């Protein structure tokens, strides 16, 4: 019935789910032979699956895989929401980002239960926990995670007279946000560059270290009253505006992307998937390096899951494919192709991952660094159904102060509180 309202938006994605053959009696499992099955897989950004699909189709001649890739995660989210609302049009396998996984966890009936003895213990505990409903239903198979480290411009740090080698730098900035900001104050006093790119980017790191940031598991919205949230908000804005540590760039903006070509800032929070983005934006700039540390302990930023919407015609075949894709061996292939860091601990023993280095980041042993960073992550913050909306509202609040300069911390917080109250 929703088609009436969402008709225009839907027109583009209808017809993805239904295939040619009415194969009511299709045998279970992936390799049963017999009928030809076409599986659609919807991803966004880069999952590194292109070659894996070819391999799977060669090994399973009865399976044809069609891959659709959304340009941004937000568009993928909107498309999946539309398909679930209309009960038609979803792909057989839909990739879901961790930040909006929680929204879909509200509708477990819309997804197939993926739990199976074969995949027990395959992922890091917190990765599985985030995709498991209260009654034990597994909604998604983990693909990658985003363990955070600090990327920095060794040349700028050295020019300002501070230790610039990986170990020395890590020791200097310490392992708390206070020591990181203190090092920043020393740095900006000795350099023209800012300490970090954007308050909003740091916020992502800080909020990922709060166990219950915005909503309680009981469903109460506490974002506006949670003292931990307020303390982190005040700390990041004091450092950004009063201490002048921020380069006042909105993350992902045109200015932000351009700024990598100059000497605008010295450090930034970098989850594994950020390396490729830095390398792309900072092409031709020398001096980037990466430190095996993150203020405030470990943290995870981003990462995805593969889900199987229950509305599909080939749920069993889709589950088999999703299981195969998220096995450690395949995830390492994806990592080597696009740098998506595995969420499967078994992969951390693999020499292909352990020994990998990154030439752009001064040959840093990125494999080992991110394995250490992944092991340092102790929990994933509790994210309720309104996480995306609340986090957007507080990011806007920070942007108003840090980037736009159109409000001070106090009035921007008041606006955030009223935004949160409007949710309902």
């Amino acid at each position, binding site marked *: 019935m929703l088609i009436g309202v969402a*008709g225009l938006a839907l027109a583009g994605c209808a017809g993805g789910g239904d295939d040619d053959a009415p194969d009511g009696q299709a045998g279970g499992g992936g390799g049963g032979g017999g009928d030809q099955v076409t599986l659609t897989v919807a991803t966004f950004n880069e999952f590194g699956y292109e070659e894996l699909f070819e391999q799977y189709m060669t090994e399973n001649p009865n399976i044809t895989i069609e891959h659709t890739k959304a340009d941004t995660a937000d568009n993928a989210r909107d498309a999946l*929401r539309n398909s679930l609302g209309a009960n038609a049009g979803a792909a057989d396998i839909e990739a879901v980002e961790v930040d909006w996984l929680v929204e879909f966890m509200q509708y477990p009936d819309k997804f197939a239960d993926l739990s199976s003895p074969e995949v027990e213990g395959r992922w890091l505990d917190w990765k599985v926990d985030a995709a498991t409903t209260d009654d034990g239903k597994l909604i998604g198979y983990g693909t990658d995670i985003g363990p955070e480290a600090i990327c920095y411009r060794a040349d700028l740090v050295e020019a300002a007279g501070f230790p610039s080698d990986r170990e020395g730098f890590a020791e200097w900035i310490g392992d708390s946000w206070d020591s990181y900001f203190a090092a920043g104050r020393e740095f900006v006093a000795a350099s023209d560059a800012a300490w970090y790119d954007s308050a909003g980017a740091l916020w992502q790191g800080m909020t990922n270290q709060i166990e219950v940031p915005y909503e309680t598991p009981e469903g109460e919205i506490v974002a506006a009253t949670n003292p931990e949230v307020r303390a982190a908000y005040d700390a990041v804005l004091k450092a950004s505006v009063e201490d002048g540590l921020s380069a006042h760039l909105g993350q992902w903006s045109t200015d932000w992307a351009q700024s990598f070509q100059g000497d605008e800032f010295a450090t930034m929070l970098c989850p594994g998937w950020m390396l490729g983005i830095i390398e792309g934006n900072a092409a031709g700039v020398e001096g980037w390096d990466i430190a095996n540390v993150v203020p405030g302990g470990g943290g995870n930023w981003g990462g995805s899951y593969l889900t199987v919407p229950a509305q599909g015609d080939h749920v069993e075949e889709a589950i088999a494919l999703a299981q195969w894709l998220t096995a450690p061996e395949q995830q390492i292939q994806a990592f080597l192709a696009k740098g998506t860091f595995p969420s499967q601990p078994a992969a951390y023993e693999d020499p292909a991952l352990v020994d990998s280095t990154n030439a752009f980041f001064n040959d840093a042993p990125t494999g080992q660094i991110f394995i250490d960073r992944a092991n340092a992550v102790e929990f994933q913050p509790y994210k309720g159904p309104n996480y995306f*909306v609340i986090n957007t509202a507080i990011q806007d609040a920070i942007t*108003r102060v840090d980037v*736009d300069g*159109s*409000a001070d911390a106090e009035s921007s917080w008041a606006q955030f509180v009223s935004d949160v109250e409007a*949710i309902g």
Partner: protein
Amino acid sequence: MSTVTDAPTRTRGRRPDDDRPPRRIGLSQRLGTWDVKLSPYLYISPFFVLFAITGLFPLLYTAYVSMHDWDQIMGQGEFVGLEHFRFVLGHSDFWVSLRNTISIFLLSSVPQVLVAITLAALLDSNLRARTFWRMGVLLPYVVAPVAVSLIFSNLFADRFGLVNAALGLIGVEPIRWHSDPLASHVAIATMVNFRWTGYNALIFLAAMQAIPRDLYESAWIDGAGRVRQFFSITVPMLRPTIIFVAITSTIGGLQIFDEPRLFDQYGRGGAGSQWKTLTIYLYELGWTQSNFGRASAVAWLLFLVIVAFGLVNLAVTRRIADTR
């Protein structure tokens, strides 16, 4: 009207030797009359049938949705009457979006129509390589909005943008295109104007060419200059076209979505709602917050705003064109 009365005569006249019985002539005559009376409606009916399905039904259905709690995925909830309208009208975001929408609309539509009409007058004069110039003004219209936004986001970047770099050369302080509401409206209106001015100019040009040339000749003999001719002949003769362009650009301008959505990396209209338009607000309610009830309420309010503006527009353009 003349076709209506002519048609049966013509059918009869075409078959002078036909000696079928009178009864059958009577039937074919009646069929002919039906044909003449009904056919025109039948020919235009596909549009109205399509409109009923894709336009009217969603319109009414949206009204139905707007009176219920309605989750995007779970669908219909309880009946809540006008509660969503009350919420939306009581929320500052709606009024800010309305302000932004009207501001961007005025900054785009008004200059657009004025420039388009001037451009059309220039193109209507004797130019060398006329077709080249005429196609030239249409070129921006062919460029996809996404590409336009990409180009303009580089032009209007706050810190490393071309426009600010150029302003810096003549000693003007950089403009905060993404922070200051008015500056962001100007930037977005520029994108809209870039795309639509040429299109409207061609519509005006087509209408201008239908104006009988002897009017200009008589005016010329009476001693009227080019400017006088433009205001005393061209503009009044363009009246229906001006009304058409004004109405379509009002509807388009108030529904503006692509340009503000692509103006920054998030597409939410700015952290402080600097350039959040009504359509972006609607999208945010429906697709980010999953609240189709509220989104439908905004859709209806937007519809009413457009109708109101359309009527004002009609009155104003009538007045302008009538005064001659």
